[in-house]
């Protein structure tokens, strides 16, 4: 498998990996590569992706009636930092 920057991959999905974790991940990618090879053995030309276990279309749509809303207290109850009824984060973009 080509060289992969695992730290960068991790940072893109908002976490870090230490050196050991990166090394372990390298091994897992080797297994992934072998798994991909197992899949390559299977001819899937003219096969559609299967996204759902049951694909028959549904007809249900929700009626546009408001019937479930949280109080502000409930909405913010789990947030680590709240200011003036808002969820607070220090700064959104790096300056």
């Amino acid at each position, binding site marked *: 498998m080509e060289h992969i920057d695992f730290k960068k991959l991790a940072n893109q999905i908002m*976490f870090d990996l230490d050196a050991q974790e990166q090394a372990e991940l390298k091994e897992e990618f080797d297994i992934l590569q072998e*798994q991909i090879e197992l*899949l390559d053995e299977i001819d899937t030309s003219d096969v559609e992706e299967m996204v759902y*276990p049951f694909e028959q279309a549904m007809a*249900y749509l929700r009626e546009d009636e408001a019937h479930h809303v949280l109080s502000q207290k*409930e909405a913010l109850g*789990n947030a680590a930092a709240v200011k003036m009824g808002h969820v607070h984060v220090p700064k959104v973009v790096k300056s």
Partner: protein
Amino acid sequence: MIESLKKQDVRKRCEEALQKAKEYQHVLNAVVTFYDIEEQLEGLNAIREDAPLYGIPVVLKDNINTKGVRTTASSRILDNYIPVYDAHIVEKLKAAGAVIIAKSSMDELGMGGTNRNAYTGKVNNPWDVTRISGGSSGGSAVLVASGAVPIAIGTDTGDSIRKPAAYNGIIGLKPTYGRISRYGVIPYASSLDHVGLFAAAVHDAAKALTVLAGRDDRDMTSSYEAVADYEKAINSDIGGKRIAVFDNVLEAIEDSRILDNFKQLCETLKKRGAIVEHVRLDDSLMNALVPVYFIISNAEATANHSNLDGIRFGMREDGDTMEEIMIHTRTKGFSSYVRKRFVIGSYSLFEENQEKIFRKAQKVRRKIVEELARVMNGYDVLLAPAASTVAPHDEDACEEKLSKTYLVAENHMVLGNFSGYPSMSVPTGFLEHMPIGINMTAHPFDEQSLFDIGAAIEEETGLKDKIAEVKA
């Protein structure tokens, strides 16, 4: 077990269940959060005594949201999370009179098959505490197997109910996809996730399914299919039932004692009038089970858990910017095992990789499901040993291998998740004092066949309500 429990006083049976779970905790380590049951016992006043689970103590896997009661999915990132709403099945259970006594341990976010990967630590097997419970619904499995509760809720994305059920000598049911609403259930991989249950007896499992099943408008994948009174309809006379034996699995199992137990069961079923024949699936498709599962589940999981960022809920770590908060929170909040899986999932979703990895896996999934439908055509169920060994010791439980035993014998139950077909594990005996079991898969919404044949097996093995004696 439910019927015998019902002969006892409601308060007494619920308190005893809670008591047992607490006593066993230092041995089994199965519980994340114990419930205060007083409020629920009072709430029973509003419920008819003939409600199907009236005053029956139950356990929920800790990925089932319970309003006002901490729900962590055994992940550090949700260690302080107090849901603001009940999962659909919690509403159903309460309406049926069930009393929740505890939230049980699981592999973090459902990702794993050993239950070693829980924030609260490994869960022990009640038959031999040096062995694993299996996972990811390990806590729920051992609380039924140890006799604390007759019913426990689990979820099953690969085999997370059916494998631990087999390791713990109990019934593990994963019904048809869409049979039980997933609303309020913390996901792993949405297209593979199923809600199901553990029980010590087939009748109890059937009763519980009737309570849990049914259309829920909040889950767009939930089914309109009518819900039967499965327990009442159980018919253990299986004369004429057509059973397909899953040869690929038998061939991949090395332990002849497990094979012997299975063959003996097949003979018994034949004696009861069932037609038992052998089928096999294409080998290259069987070898693809694990890769397809690994790729699809990790991809869906990485997206599903993008909401865990410490902003609106969960354990937030400090940082000078929004990005830093997210990165610190998620680095500390997820185990290294989970983070590595997310990276793999994310990688397979990159535009330049999707065709080769993610979409390829989805295409192979279709071929596998078509193959399953082909071999099951004309049969009521597909039957195989649930696992190739008894519950392993801690050190033996290895997650990823490319051996045939691992690819086929240890992972065939994922077929039920790919296809959405209902599937159930049933105990069939013991090997060196450790339980072993079989797994059956039926056609969509034919859970009744699983219960019918399961009841017949139970009658033959005498393992109904068989529970482990835990030395607390």
